[in-house]
């Protein structure tokens, strides 16, 4: 019998880590993400795609650079490139629903549910920890809630959506997730962190 393995490694266990004597700076978790889909519009069809995708997942999604939307415990979507969106939701049938709802002449969808892992970074020091890894301005003025960014830390390609004043959702290639989590944990040691 094959053992089911977590993409985050056996030591991603609930508990407090690092220098947490003076409090917890951030909380790391990997909330379940039943569906992760990349949607790409044909040139000139960006708005039509955003509208179709938004309708299926119940969000009002715009096509502009970095634009995004999400519902608490519901679906999330954000722009990751010209005419491209990352769409996720808890429901595992969402991928099929999205693929069925977008006509061929509008764009294409790729089911990445098994190819990406979602990580949540939340807490008062979330901006501080992420700024160690990515050359981005994480202040809420430059990176407002609902918006998304595609960026990289060395070889780790990461797509990030801000879902709260102190909360970010990170999408990484699943085969890189374990190594990336170890980097994230190392970066969070000085502020103290909890895994949930």
């Amino acid at each position, binding site marked *: 019998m094959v053992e089911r393995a977590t993409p985050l490694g056996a030591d991603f266990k609930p508990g407090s880590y690092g220098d947490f004597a003076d409090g917890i700076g951030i909380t790391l978790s990997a909330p379940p993400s039943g569906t992760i889909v990349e949607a790409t519009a044909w*040139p*000139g069809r*960006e708005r039509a795609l955003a509208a179709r995708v938004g309708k299926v997942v119940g969000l009002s999604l715009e*096509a502009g*650079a*970095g634009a995004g939307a999400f519902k608490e415990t519901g679906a999330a979507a954000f722009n*990751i*490139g*010209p*005419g*491209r969106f990352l769409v996720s939701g808890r429901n595992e049938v969402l991928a099929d629903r999205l693929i069925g709802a977008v006509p061929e002449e509008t764009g294409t969808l790729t089911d990445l549910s098994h190819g990406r892992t979602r990580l949540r970074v939340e807490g008062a020091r979330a901006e501080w920890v992420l700024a160690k890894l990515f*050359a*981005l301005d994480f202040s809420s003025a430059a990176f407002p809630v609902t918006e998304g*960014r*595609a*960026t*990289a830390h*060395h070889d780790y*390609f990461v797509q990030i959506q801000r879902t709260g004043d102190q909360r970010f959702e990170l999408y990484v290639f699943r085969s890189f997730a374990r190594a990336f989590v170890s980097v994230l944990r190392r970066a969070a040691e000085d502020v103290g962190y909890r895994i949930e």
Partner: protein
Amino acid sequence: MLISCPHCGPRDLAEFSYQGDATRTRPDPASTDTQAWHDYVYARPNPAGPHREFWQHAGGCRAHLLVVRDTLTHEIHSTALARPSRAGGETA
């Protein structure tokens, strides 16, 4: 060094990959003019100054860009999407 991606805005050089000289024009693929192919593959003016080149925002929006970079100062004079798009802009 920062490159201002037309989609993402100013981003660190580390997010970009160099994709080659954008001043060359490929001969007709059916052409057997060996001099033209030789020039296309090997002949490089290597200017000390502004240079048109292709870059990809590989660690970001993944768009291919046309960048004019000064080879003396690394100043980026302009950036545009390599392929014209209605949402993006025009090829320089």
